[in-house]
């Protein structure tokens, strides 16, 4: 994958208005084009705040003290209005029903496009295409209110994609969904990343899934980035996770236990997926 940074964050510190503790402290982070990055952290660790910095909602829509810089595809988020950044960064939030405001799926997707001044003909085309991409073909005239959570979330993704962003940002997109819904969303995201080379940034709690799909894991705590690396690199720091109060993929935890019991030799990197773990223990049983 080409190492072309599409998001560059330098020394970012942000404190919400009327609060004393910064929500983000000294964040330094580079994300390359086409990467699938996962943000992990407890509720309140700063994940949502960081994501809101990526499309300029922070600092443009939220009051607060903003220090440092966030540059997305060459644009500084303090100098460019959210409207412009919305063309680069598509956002999906955790409660799909709370994102809906229109009476038909087509209108819902068209909302952002209307704001950008896209022609009606072009709108029809984009809506049709994006519904195909998220697996809801010909759903244009259906009511978004009547869909399942997984379907609503996919409409949300389609709405974000219709603006042809380069980056798709998702804040705990599956937390309110049932297993099928979760699967649907993870599949769409994965396909977008693999087939369309879209940059994906997701905040999630499903560590096993992130271990399988993400190129990079970023662990946050108290507004800071604690760890930043591949899933194997990051999840192998089992003690750090334990101290914060987060869990690692189950196989990683088991591996650590076995290592401590001296049943396997010391490893620099633990397995994070079922396949990796099986490869490890298969020969030993």
């Amino acid at each position, binding site marked *: 994958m080409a190492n072309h940074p599409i998001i560059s964050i330098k020394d970012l510190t942000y404190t919400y208005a009327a609060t004393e503790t910064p929500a983000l402290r000294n964040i330094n982070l580079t994300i390359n084009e086409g990467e699938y990055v996962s943000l992990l952290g407890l509720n309140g660790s700063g994940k949502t705040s960081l994501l809101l910095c990526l499309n300029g909602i922070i600092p443009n829509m939220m009051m607060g003290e903003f220090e440092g810089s966030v540059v997305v595809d060459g644009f500084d988020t303090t100098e460019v209005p959210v409207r412009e950044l919305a063309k680069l960064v598509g956002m999906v939030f955790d409660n799909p029903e709370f994102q809906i405001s229109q009476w038909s799926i087509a209108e819902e997707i068209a909302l952002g496009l209307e704001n950008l001044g896209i022609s009606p003909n072009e709108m029809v085309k984009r809506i049709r295409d994006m519904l195909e991409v998220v697996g809801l073909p010909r759903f244009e005239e259906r009511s978004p209110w009547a869909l399942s959570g997984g379907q609503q979330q996919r409409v949300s993704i389609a709405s974000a994609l219709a603006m042809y962003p380069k980056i798709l940002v998702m804040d705990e997109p599956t937390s309110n969904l049932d297993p099928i819904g979760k699967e649907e969303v993870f599949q769409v995201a994965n396909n977008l990343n693999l087939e369309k080379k879209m940059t994906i940034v997701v905040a999630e*709690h499903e560590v096993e899934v992130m271990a399988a799909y993400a190129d990079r894991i970023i662990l946050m705590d108290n507004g800071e980035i604690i760890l930043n690396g591949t899933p194997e690199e990051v999840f192998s720091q089992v003690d750090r996770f334990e101290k914060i109060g987060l869990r690692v993929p189950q196989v990683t935890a088991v591996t650590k236990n076995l290592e401590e019991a001296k049943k396997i030799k010391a490893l620099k990197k633990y397995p994070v997926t079922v396949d990796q773990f099986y490869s490890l223990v298969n020969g030993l049983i």
Partner: protein
Amino acid sequence: MTKPIIECQGLTHIYKNTVVAVDNLNLKVLPGEVVGIIGQNGSGKTTLVKHFNGLLKPTKGKVLIDGRDTTTMKIQELAKTVGYVFQNPNQQLFAKTVESELEFGPRNIGCSEEEVIERREHAIEFFGLENIRLSHPYRIGFPLRKLVGMASIYTMKPKIYIVDEPTTGQDHITTKRVNNLINKLRDEGATIICVAHDMILLADIAQRMIVMKDSKIILDGKMKEVFLNFETIKSTHITPPQVTEVSRVLLQNKKIGKDDLCLTIPEMTTLLKKKIK
């Protein structure tokens, strides 16, 4: 023979004359059992458990709670026996302080003032809410609000708890806390019905698992037995815990036996410690 505390006989529920949400369901739950119910949204699991506290009444068939037919009792009456912890605490919390929130339930069911205070204090201790007893429920963050929601049902001292998605949207610390609390409730002798998608939680708290699909129960038994039905579980799109997936692979490659199926990290650790020479 112990009498079941929850019994469904031929339970059918039809919404608006057309949608069959629960189809001719038979079920017995014994006192003190911890039962996990899983299935897709739309499988009928929420419809089923809403019959236990009377929110829904059967279209056909009977539901007996502690031997009494639910159609002879009002919801408020059943609330003394069956506590329903709603998934979204925002739909239950309204008082000015956590304390008042905890007092709401017992007052409604007719406890004396002393009793109300005693139960409130006991709940605060049990759930570890001392720091926030005077806080406004909407100022304490979502994870704590869920705990307050649970605590406000605890003060009603029901025999049966129906817990709806207690860990959805929660991070690990709060999930562990909820996990421990449910185990403590079990130790106090409560019967617990937990409707959830969180397999890791259920693997820890539940002894028995019921899987629902298309308005029917398709699997019902001890956790391990249920999870051995790999194909059926896959067809419901339920994701078993990762260690269970590993067990499946090991089983398929004949490295372990059926009885060795693991549901939790400690189980797999113990198993492999044995198997690796």
